[in-house]
């Protein structure tokens, strides 16, 4: 079933929309959730919540690309679940490791006058990823959007783990420099 047909079902408040979303993108959403949560039950719950949220958002929203629309919801929900869990039990989980890595990208406080809003930050990130080579961009997003482990990224792309680590390290450094140059204060 085409995305526009599934979206049309959401607009008609036809529950088959959820069934069709699950059939077409269930595996994809589960992958995103599981990459973040590393737990089958939590991931399934997260994916189910994704459909509920999509149901409540369409209409009025009319996503052009349903896969990324659902993927973004799943990622947000999974991060939220993980944050709540982490708050209860601080530990060496995916989120804390990723956040630690991202700390390297934060520009120094003197480089800008005001904190930017989320929208501006996203625009800056979009500009930054455009400057990356396709390979580095893929590795960067697989790590920080799909939250895959270094090992998984290496397996997925037939790279060595050290190549992935090196690419991520350089991209993080370049991101920090880019944000500083753009005057982006987080």
């Amino acid at each position, binding site marked *: 079933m085409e995305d526009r047909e599934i979206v*049309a079902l959401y607009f008609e408040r036809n529950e088959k929309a959820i069934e069709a979303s699950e059939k077409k993108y*269930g595996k994809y959403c589960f992958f995103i959730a599981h990459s973040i949560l590393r737990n089958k039950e939590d991931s399934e719950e997260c994916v189910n919540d994704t459909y509920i949220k999509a149901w409540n958002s369409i209409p009025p929203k009319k996503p052009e690309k349903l896969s990324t629309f659902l993927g973004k919801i799943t990622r947000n929900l999974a991060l939220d679940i993980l944050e709540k869990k982490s708050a209860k039990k601080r530990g060496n989980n995916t989120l804390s490791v990723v*956040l630690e890595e991202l700390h390297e990208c934060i520009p120094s406080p003197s480089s800008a006058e005001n904190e930017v809003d989320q*929208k501006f930050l996203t625009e800056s990130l979009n500009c930054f990823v455009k400057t990356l080579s396709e390979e580095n961009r893929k590795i960067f997003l697989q790590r920080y959007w799909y939250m895959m482990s270094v090992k998984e990224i290496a397996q997925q792309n037939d790279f060595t783990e050290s190549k992935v680590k090196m690419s991520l390290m350089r991209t993080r450094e370049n991101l920090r420099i880019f944000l500083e140059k753009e005057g982006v204060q987080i």
Partner: protein
Amino acid sequence: MKEKKLLDALNEIEDEFINEAKPEMKKKGKIISFRWIVAAACFIVLVCVAVPLIQYLPSQLAPREEPTSSKEENITTKGEGIEATEESVTEIIFETEIQAETTAIDGVCDILEKDYWEKLDINQQYCYALFGKNTYDNTNTEISASHTGRKIADITAKGTDLYSKKTYTKDAEIFSVKSIDEDFAVAVKFKESSRYFVYINPVCNFETVGEIVEKLSLDKNLKVLDGLYREDDVSLTKYKSIDSSVVLDLLVNNKNLEELKEPAEILQSDVLFEISVPPVIPSAGNTVSVSKNGYLLVNIFYMQHIFFIGKEEANEFINSFLENHKGQKLVATTEQHIVYNGAKEDVFITEVYSNGYKP
């Protein structure tokens, strides 16, 4: 936390990049959605159990053809006014869901939980009812005995535990549901249980709009929950407390229209009503809608029934509805809010009251 802010901002990165980095599922191999696994397990069971059974059964079933035919005759004559007083006894086979999805077959039983069968409710264990020419689906809806009508048959239910691959049987009875046509829905009561579960035939044939009204007794059972008018892609108006006669009259006035089997275009609803048909379909998600290009769409239990009422009548109905009802306009904005489960949304709804509507 600054790092979290960066991670959140990444969420809204352009779709093109997200898509480009999309992992290939095949290479992962280990992470498989539960539904696919169940489907694959069903397929294995189908191959292992059903195929030998199909080869074996024809000769065994041949002598039973006569009672089945007489049962079908009973149903036909009932429609002509002769009420069947004797309970027809027929063997009905319930099957667990079978989907011929052949991917991800490896290791399915490793992932299914050992006690998954015990955790299912009885209607989920025996989720399909094959009766005569119809297959009724479990709806997870329970009704009280007072909503049931005549007993239709005694049955033997069968279901398969996909973990152990054991097949179980259970005695049950099926009843009609008051004021609902047996072709559309029945109530199933399992032995040693006092509960009645609604099973629906999702491909129930409705030749005309009138048949939908008749088979579901919509004149008595129809409830309209909400209405929605789509002005354009971002502007919607929501209507509450709509009298069910608005929808019922629309259906009855077009009762002779025949269902279109293959509509030529993707249809978009311009005015949509969310309906329920208690007690068989108590929840939301079923709709009646009208499109400005002349279509009447009726969605009942996942199935869409399409009729062409004509552009003129469709627009007349829409305009008359809008003139006589007060709604709440919903407008999409770009503000950010915290909504469901704490997640953030980039496009949100501002509620603007129009036409004197008070929530």
